[in-house]
């Protein structure tokens, strides 16, 4: 039996979604100010309209819906699912008003791509986008990226084992600090530190590459947001190719790696405990899978004759792998190159790396290395149970969240369920792409995995002229992938209980 949510529940959810919109409105004010200073009047108007709508709705919900009722974990999940959906709709308003998108759906796609740190873009004429609009797209990645980490860690604190086991498979102690405020502060301290250092390093590298100081700073700050938040948006259509700079590529690679580390690991490193990084099942899994995938990429590229030098393999193949594993999506190749020049094996390895993605509790997307590690441990555990006598007690342990843990059945089931959901979604996305008859299976599978895992490396399917139906499916896939299905399913269950649930006592 399911209980129908009452008016109080709806009020509570609407109140917190309103808070999110208020925050989004404040984010929009930053590019609005930049637009006013830079005299980009059209952009300034778009941002002020969008910000006004968000702030007004946020203020009304704050005044009319304020409640002291405590949040339950179910409320939290529904709010998170709605926040990313409603947030993307409102974030898309200034984009649509800018006139750089074909229709409202394309603006929604771009906003969802930003908030979910996917980084695919359907904007027209990116190379001539006003400064404020570029900054806005990149700020969305920062807000969505840091936001999702805070949300996930807060839900662990509020929801206990039920949510935690679904989200990262055994993560009750994943909350890095005892309460929400301190957690949020630590996350922003890490992001702020890397913001200052990363932007400065990129600024110097871009000066060295021949950029004017103003332009170097503008590119540096956008590159930082896109790299550290594993987003992958770019100021230029040609992405990283535009810079032709090894030092820029190395700094971006460092930021992508920093972005894909879980905040639990950042905390351990700040605390002077690097052994956690070395012992963690997640970092070990990522090291092993990345090495295997890079071997396949290198072998495939050399065999196809795409590159023949170690330097080209590192700057093109290795960079692309780091971009895929970290779920950033920066490109050092034109998208079509993966189809025309990379042969078959190398793109297949990139697809595998994109499917796995980075670490849980980071801004990275994908299935997450912890789930792959747990699935592998489960397989070994089951094989041991088959081979050993029936009376033997088989205990499997692994290291996560700074502790040695025992592998439990519910942990294994949750990890494999989410893994399966990701794979099914990737296949559905690939099949929908095939329906249009414009792309082959290599293209649609590559793009589907990239979108569904919030990566952003594109083989060329995503473009301003792509079919609307496919664009809508990709929007849903980005939303599902970012929230790792659980929150979206909770929202669906909530909607179902509104329609069919039994009224409370």
């Amino acid at each position: 039996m399911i209980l129908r949510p009452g008016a109080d529940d709806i009020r509570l959810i609407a109140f917190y979604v309103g808070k999110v919109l208020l925050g989004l409105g404040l984010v929009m004010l930053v590019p609005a100010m930049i637009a006013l200073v830079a005299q980009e009047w059209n952009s300034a108007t778009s941002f002020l309209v969008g910000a006004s709508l968000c702030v007004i709705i946020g203020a009304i919900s704050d005044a009319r819906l304020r409640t002291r009722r405590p949040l339950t974990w179910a409320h939290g999940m529904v709010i998170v699912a709605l926040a990313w959906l409603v947030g993307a709709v409102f974030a898309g308003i200034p984009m649509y008003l800018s006139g750089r998108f074909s229709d409202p759906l394309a603006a929604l796609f771009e906003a969802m791509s930003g908030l979910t740190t996917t980084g695919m873009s359907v904007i027209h004429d990116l190379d001539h986008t006003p400064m404020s609009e570029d900054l806005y797209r990149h700020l969305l990645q920062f807000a969505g990226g840091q936001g999702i980490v805070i949300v996930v860690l807060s839900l662990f604190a509020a929801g206990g084992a039920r949510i935690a086991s679904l989200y990262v498979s055994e993560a009750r102690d994943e909350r890095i600090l005892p309460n929400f405020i301190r957690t949020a502060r630590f996350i922003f301290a890490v992001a702020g530190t890397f913001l200052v250092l990363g932007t400065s390093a990129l600024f110097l590298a871009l000066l060295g590459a021949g950029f004017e100081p103003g332009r170097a700073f503008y590119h540096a700050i956008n590159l930082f947001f896109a790299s550290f938040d594993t987003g992958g948006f770019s100021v230029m259509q040609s992405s990283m190719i535009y810079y032709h700079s090894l030092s820029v590529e190395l700094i971006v690679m460092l930021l992508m790696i920093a972005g894909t580390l879980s905040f639990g690991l950042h905390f351990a490193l700040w605390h002077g405990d690097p052994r956690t990084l070395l012992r963690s099942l997640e970092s070990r899994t990522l090291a092993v899978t990345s090495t295997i995938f890079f071997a396949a990429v290198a072998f495939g590229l050399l065999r196809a004759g795409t590159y023949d030098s170690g330097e080209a393999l590192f700057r093109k193949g290795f960079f692309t792998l780091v971009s895929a594993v970290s779920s950033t999506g920066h490109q050092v190749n034109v998208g079509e190159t993966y189809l025309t020049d990379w042969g078959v094996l190398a793109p297949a390895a990139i697809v595998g790396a994109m499917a796995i993605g980075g670490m849980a509790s980071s801004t990275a997307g994908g299935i997450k290395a912890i789930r792959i590690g747990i699935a592998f441990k489960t397989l070994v555990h089951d094989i041991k149970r088959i081979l050993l006598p029936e009376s033997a007690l088989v205990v499997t342990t692994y290291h996560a969240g700074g502790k040695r843990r025992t592998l439990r059945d519910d942990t294994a089931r949750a990890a494999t369920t989410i893994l399966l959901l990701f794979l099914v979604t990737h296949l559905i996305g690939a099949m929908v792409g095939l329906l249009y008859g414009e792309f082959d299976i290599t293209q649609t599978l590559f793009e589907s995995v990239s979108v569904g895992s919030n990566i952003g490396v594109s083989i060329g399917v995503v473009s301003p002229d792509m079919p609307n139906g496919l664009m809508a499916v990709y929007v849903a896939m980005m939303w599902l992938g970012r929230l790792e299905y659980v929150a979206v399913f909770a929202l669906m269950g909530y909607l179902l209980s509104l329609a069919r649930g039994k009224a409370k006592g």
Partner: protein
Amino acid sequence: MHRTRPDEPWSRGAARGVGFVVLLFGAVAAAGVALSFGFAWLMG
């Protein structure tokens, strides 16, 4: 600002955290370079 150790300024924790990430990046990049040149040599 949060302090990772109560008896020290937060900037020391930040320096340590960033330092370890730079070291990790160095290790990853070195592995990438070694594998790239190694594979190119093997297949060359």
